[in-house]
């Protein structure tokens, strides 16, 4: 049930991306086919798991626990800055990398005090600008997503931005999306993009989200941001696809001098509470 990289979900993977059109044919396989397959093939939901008395069979119970464990571990993994630096270098990202911490000193505090995760630790110093763009890589709720997808995403974005002046890349510990506001302001960046580990789901512990904010400064509302979610190849968005969308948003945002709902048509609106 588990693969070497810890990705779980034989169940989810079997059915995740199956088109529903397939469903109609399954039922026509004749009376000898497993009728439960009709349900299983129709949805990625965990249907037709069978029973052991009034509970779940052991194999299904352990499968669920493995998926939950992967999600929990993704939340509580510490951000490994060296690993990210190495990955960035391997991906050909030549930007200087700076590290910052939020005011949340540890994971327990971070989870209970989102307000602290949006503020820079006291005494944080960042070099001024001006720059067209600042990139912040933030651990968020899944440092694992940052480990696996930040470098590839950043490289793909930079490849598509010739002529933009880009500030040193900031790697942020115990950070929420809105930490990009004080970082972007300190770096004097016209736009900040925060690549952040998203809250892990049972079948997606490594999703990276990209949040764009024009004119970053503390106090920006979530409605002033644009979001690209679920960067997670090969199951979710690929780096090139995500970078194409982001760069289109960046260009539109620079032209318009704003971000958020005014750019709504070109990107997904920010989900409530995401900040």
């Amino acid at each position, binding site marked *: 049930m588990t693969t070497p990289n810890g990705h779980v979900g034989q169940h989810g993977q079997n059915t995740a991306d199956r088109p529903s059109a397939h469903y109609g044919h399954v039922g026509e396989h004749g009376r000898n086919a497993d009728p439960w397959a009709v349900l299983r093939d129709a*949805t*990625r939901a*965990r249907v037709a*798991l069978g029973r052991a008395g009034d509970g779940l069979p052991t194999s299904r119970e352990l499968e*669920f626990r493995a998926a939950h464990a992967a999600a929990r571990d993704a939340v509580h993994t510490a951000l490994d800055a060296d690993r990210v630096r190495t990955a960035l270098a391997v991906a050909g990202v030549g930007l200087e990398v700076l590290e910052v911490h939020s005011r949340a000193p540890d994971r327990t505090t971070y989870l209970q005090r989102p307000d602290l995760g949006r503020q820079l630790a006291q005494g944080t110093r960042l070099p001024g600008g001006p720059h067209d763009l600042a990139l912040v890589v933030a651990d968020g709720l899944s440092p694992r997503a940052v480990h696996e997808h930040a470098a590839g995403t950043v490289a793909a974005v930079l490849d598509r931005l010739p002529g933009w002046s880009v500030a040193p890349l900031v790697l942020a510990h115990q950070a929420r999306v809105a930490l990009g506001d004080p970082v972007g302001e300190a770096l004097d960046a016209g736009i900040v993009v925060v690549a952040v580990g998203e809250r892990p789901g049972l079948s997606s512990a490594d999703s990276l989200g990209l949040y764009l904010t024009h004119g970053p400064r503390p106090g920006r509302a979530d409605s002033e941001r644009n979001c690209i979610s679920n960067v997670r190849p090969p199951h979710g968005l690929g780096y090139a696809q995500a970078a194409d969308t982001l760069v289109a948003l960046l260009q539109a945002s620079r032209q318009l001098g704003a971000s958020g709902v005014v750019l709504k048509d070109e990107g997904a609106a920010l989900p409530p509470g995401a900040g």
Partner: protein
Amino acid sequence: MTVRRATLGGHTHEFGSLTDLLAKATPARSGDVLAGVAAESQAQRVAAQHVLADVPLATFLTEQVVGYDEDDVTRLILDTHDPAAFAPVASLTVGEFRDWLLARAAERDEAAISALARGLTPEMVAAVSKLMRNADLVAVARRTRVVTGLRGTLGLPGRLASRLQPNHPTDDAVGVTASILDGLLHGSGDAVIGINPATDNPAQTIALLELVDAVISRYEIPTQSCVLAHVTTTLRALEAGAPVDLVFQSVAGTQAGNRGFGVTLDLLTEARAGALELGRGTVGSNVTYFETGQGSALSADAHHGVDGPVDQQTLECRAYGVARHFDPLLVNTVVGFIGPEYLYDGKQVIRAGLEDHFCGKLLGLPMGVDVCYTNHTDVDGDDTDVLTLLLGAAGCAFVIAVPGSDDVMLHYQSLSFTDVLTARSVLDLRPAPEFEAWLARMDLLDNAGRVRELTPDAPAARALLAAAR
């Protein structure tokens, strides 16, 4: 503003307002720390509980937590207060009220407890809950009776119903149907077949309403459907003549919180009238469904009271004050959904689930609980087992169940269909009576009345699976 004091262990604790006193007396939870209202020490918390125990219940009718003039929820609560229902406990303090409730519960005097509902305000109920241990919350809720109905009867003693939640990330009709059938085959769905739509628009809502209505009609299932769209979307569906059984809305305990949800009391009144007009009930006429959850007001910065921020549990009770005005069929708290900044771990979620259930029921609501958690909260299946079994013992009207505990649209974990079977089996609880009779007609029950473990070639399974073809 009355300053209240208690001396405990040689130290005098002062509480500047009723709002402050309620917050400081609240059992520990992360949301109150986030709001800056939590007790600063265990001793201060217990001192607040001592002071609160001596506050007369009648004080809550004159001293407000959220102002009467600026908040329509406060006005609704106080303007609809029933002095006759309040009379049996009108002379008691909060502490004496706890003793009174425990005594009536021990005597199994359901009538005395249940008759109080319209005489109690949310703040009174919140206050007494803060003095109660988990077992107190279970014992009293178990002897509080609230029965509602539309096409099935909910809240009867010895019954535990479930909302079958067949969510799908793209609202795909076939995917939703598969989850509905899986739930029905497990004996779930007697409270409601309720879908959270991935997209909140009238066309999608109508399509899903028609889908569930077709399943319910085809198999003549004595249950009701709901698409949990925004009330304004449901109003559009009603105008279009869609088969709306229940009007759904999330509600909060302050006018500002409800504004954050985009609702007013007038909107809810209008939608309820529209659903009532359809006359789709067979055994009752409760046509509304509300969801709530501790922390929703704080998350919308709508948690401010007359003398400062209000604790999240008191505000949750005020949301029940909104819900009960609309004679709901169903109300549930979504207890572990909101995240660790409001309820941090299993202990806090279990406590909050029992509080919400007790408080809602005492206020006269048909109370259910979405026993659930997200992956960034320190909660797992062991915790949800504990809460589910305690709720079953407490006479909870319904819980929510999704295939394999995994909501693939909202990305959180609720109970599985088998969790409902386990709770019913362990606690000797049965489905809603009309639904139980339907399960028997469909040959889905064995001789002992438990939901059969079906082989795919069983006639009942074949009949239901035929719907998928």
